[in-house]
């Protein structure tokens, strides 16, 4: 597929972000996205499907997302397509979480 991921030879994408003594993950959520993806593509779909799912991201979104944001997009898409976790279930969880935060503040 000739998508936004085909970056070879493009100009003007900025300076290379070289970070000294870089940690493996920059936040807990990055580590979790990596590990959940790893666990699912070992058991539910192949890693190639994850890579392809990243490439299916709309071009504007692809080019404005970080590496693990693209992985998160792929994870959500594939969990949904494989009927493991739906978008609605995620939204419902978030709504319940927001509700519980509000209630605890009211206490």
């Amino acid at each position, binding site marked *: 597929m000739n998508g936004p*991921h*085909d*970056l*070879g*030879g*493009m*100009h003007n*994408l*900025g*300076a*290379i*972000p*070289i*970070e000294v003594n*870089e940690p*493996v*993950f*920059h*936040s*807990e*959520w*990055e*580590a*979790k*996205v*990596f*590990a*959940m993806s*790893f*666990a*699912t593509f070992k058991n*539910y779909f192949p*890693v*190639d499907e994850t*890579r392809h799912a*990243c*490439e299916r991201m709309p071009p504007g979104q692809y*080019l*404005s*997302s*970080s*590496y*693990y*944001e693209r992985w*998160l997009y792929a*994870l*959500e898409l594939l*969990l949904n397509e494989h009927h*493991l*976790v739906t978008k609605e*279930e*995620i939204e419902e*969880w*978030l709504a319940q*979480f927001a509700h519980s935060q509000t209630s605890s503040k009211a206490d």
Partner: protein
Amino acid sequence: MSSHSQHSESDIALRVKAIESLLVEKGIIDPATIDMIIDAYEHRIGPHNGARIVARAWVDPNFKQRLLTDGTSTIAELGLAGFSSEHMIVVENTPEVHNLIVCTLCSCYPWAILGLPPTWYKSFAYRSRAVIDPRGVLREFGLEISNHVEVRVWDSNADLRYLVLPERPLGTETMTEAALTSLVTRNAMIGTAKVQVPTPPELVA
């Protein structure tokens, strides 16, 4: 790696928490497995694995020849084959040739040998420019390659990954294999650095 992100970190973290909770609740993932995967890539799998391959090649000419002829099986001899490194080609730096590895389409990288790739390897800047201006890219890493040296760029893909065998620095002839291992850096095995000899104590001011 949020330098070019336009999304709030706390929103993302919460969304990830939602997915994790749902996966655990449904029994699709086990929290212990998640911790084990993170621990493995944070502490056990990393460039020290690749450094063992390089140091062995420097001290054992037969191993080196096998490594350059059949990277996959020779790396397996050291027990370092693994996920995302199933098919390996090792390319040798010489006084005439400098090799550089990239993955323009994704960020394919030999995980079992070098661990997870650094941010710069995954960046759009590196992925796009390594193939069109490799010497310019190397200058950003502080590495000036003479015009007399050929620069070869290898574009990795889903099934095939590369490893650079850097040049053994002069002045390391008496070093043991274990000591040599400690000299080899991740960037040297991707081709964005050369292996440096530690400064002898008498030269330190």
